[in-house]
């Protein structure tokens, strides 16, 4: 037996190939119609290329053909888990462009509902993240809590998902009677439910081992790819527009900017991104409580002229959405319709980091990383 020749022969016979798989557009853990072209070496992911655009609905073109206030319902459908926040950013962008003042009470209501929607959005993110890792029950507990928030929204604006509640210069309607009590009734037991979630999922050692030290985003790389929101904060960058560039009345509230601490592994790993969302919910609860305490009386909407025409100019307005920084770049030519609207979707930018960090991870980690970024395809494709 000529050993070496034999070995070489065997090596040749065992030559392995890369395998290319389409993950999506129909796949349980791509959170919508996202397609990932994954090249794998066995279970190890070699290269990922996200293919997007399956949910492209020409939002930017639609905006050019509608008056400013009529684009509001369309913003609901961007990040459909956080319709309030999308509405809000659009309203503020146009208000900034046109210099519209918002009544005090409306500001409080806006902050309150924005934060409630943040909780709702994070609940979905956290729950479905558990689903991605193969546990079914937390997602239903999270949805239970979310339902309560949606009930509050429904009582206020009449819809559960596509709210169309914010208006340029205020909000559509004042709060219905008794809503303040209902919000308090929701908030009081909420922290206990978060504890329960922590025991059931966050602290579970299988879960921790699946997520800690997986898919670490170094802060510089994350920022380079425009990652914002909880995903950036988990990397240890305490950048929160509510604190860094307080819009609306966020400068009045006391809350903590939640930062990843690397408790279970490295700072900026998948567990941190998950944990940031969980802790952010508690911070949002604090803000809502302060809103309820300081809610003033008065008007909720500034009267605008029947044909609303902002002056010529352009502006990029960014707001801290649950997913990250949502930016509307609005160009006005002085007519009732915007001449150009560009939407900087946080999910779009957050998703673009996937090819850079998903090299050499396992297939199951890819699912975990994707879930931890918390993308909503409505916003990626717009």
């Amino acid at each position, binding site marked *: 037996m000529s050993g070496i020749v034999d070995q070489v022969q065997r090596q040749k016979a065992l030559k392995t190939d890369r395998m290319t798989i389409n993950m999506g557009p129909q796949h349980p853990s791509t959170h919508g119609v996202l397609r990932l072209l994954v090249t794998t070496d066995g279970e190890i992911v070699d290269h990922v290329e996200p293919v*997007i*655009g399956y949910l*492209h609905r020409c939002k930017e073109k639609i905006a050019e053909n509608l008056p400013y206030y009529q684009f509001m319902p369309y913003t609901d459908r961007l990040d459909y888990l956080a319709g309030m926040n999308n509405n809000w950013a659009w309203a503020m962008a146009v208000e900034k462009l046109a210099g519209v003042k918002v009544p005090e009470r409306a500001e409080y209501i806006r902050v309150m509902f924005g934060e409630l929607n943040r909780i709702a959005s994070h609940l979905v993110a956290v729950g479905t993240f558990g689903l991605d890792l193969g546990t079914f029950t937390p997602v239903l507990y999270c949805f239970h809590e979310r339902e309560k928030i949606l009930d509050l929204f429904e009582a206020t604006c009449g819809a559960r998902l596509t709210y169309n509640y914010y208006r340029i210069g205020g909000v559509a309607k004042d709060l219905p009677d008794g809503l303040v009590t209902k919000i308090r009734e929701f908030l009081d037991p909420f922290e206990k439910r978060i504890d329960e979630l922590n025991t059931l999922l966050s602290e579970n050692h299988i879960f921790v081992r699946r997520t800690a030290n997986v898919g670490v985003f170094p802060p510089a790389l994350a920022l380079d790819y425009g990652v914002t929101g909880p995903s950036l904060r988990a990397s240890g960058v305490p950048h929160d527009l509510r604190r860094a560039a307080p819009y609306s009345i966020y400068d009045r509230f006391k809350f903590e900017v939640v930062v990843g601490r690397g408790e279970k592994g490295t700072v900026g790993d998948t567990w941190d991104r998950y944990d940031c969302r969980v802790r952010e919910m508690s911070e949002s609860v604090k803000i809502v409580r302060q809103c309820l305490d300081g809610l003033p009386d008065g008007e909720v909407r500034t009267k605008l002229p029947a044909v609303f025409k902002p002056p010529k100019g352009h502006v990029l307005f960014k707001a801290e959405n649950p997913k990250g920084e949502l*930016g509307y*770049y609005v*160009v006005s030519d002085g007519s009732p319709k915007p001449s150009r609207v560009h939407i900087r979707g946080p999910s779009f*930018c957050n998703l*673009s980091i996937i090819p*850079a960090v998903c090299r050499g991870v396992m297939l199951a980690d890819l699912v975990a990383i994707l879930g931890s970024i918390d993308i909503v395809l409505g916003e990626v494709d717009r």
Partner: protein
Amino acid sequence: MVTPREIHDRLKAQFPDDVGDFVEEPVEFFSEVKPAAVGRVCAFLKEDPELSFNYLVSISSVDLTANLAAVYHLESMDLESGRTRHAFVMRAQAPRDNPVIASVATVWGTAIWQEREVYDLMGITFEGHPDLKRILTDDDWVGHPLRKDYVFPKTYRGIDLE
């Protein structure tokens, strides 16, 4: 904190030929930059230790009828405190019949997708982009939908779109 005006002046001193006027619109100020120089200017903006624009917020495109423009919103963020040190807006205009702008995809990773999006929807070609192809519409889509003179096609691959 450096004001946009000062940043513009520094850029002007560094690239006298490439940087144009400083436009002061009521809400937002921006600098005009020559399309071919965008890559150079941005690399400088990022590398310069004092400016260090490490965060490209977005690349928006605007149809200015005669020209197509790309608007870059930049921010410099302090990674320790999370504060935005300073922000800067610049615009590059390219002629409509041959819209070519230098790519910044090698400067910021986020530009890879954002430039693809601008290319897809507005039809501005970014020179030096590693993988410039359509991102939101289909690969064989004709035309660039966000241009003002875009006519929506009647059919697509035999599907009636009316």
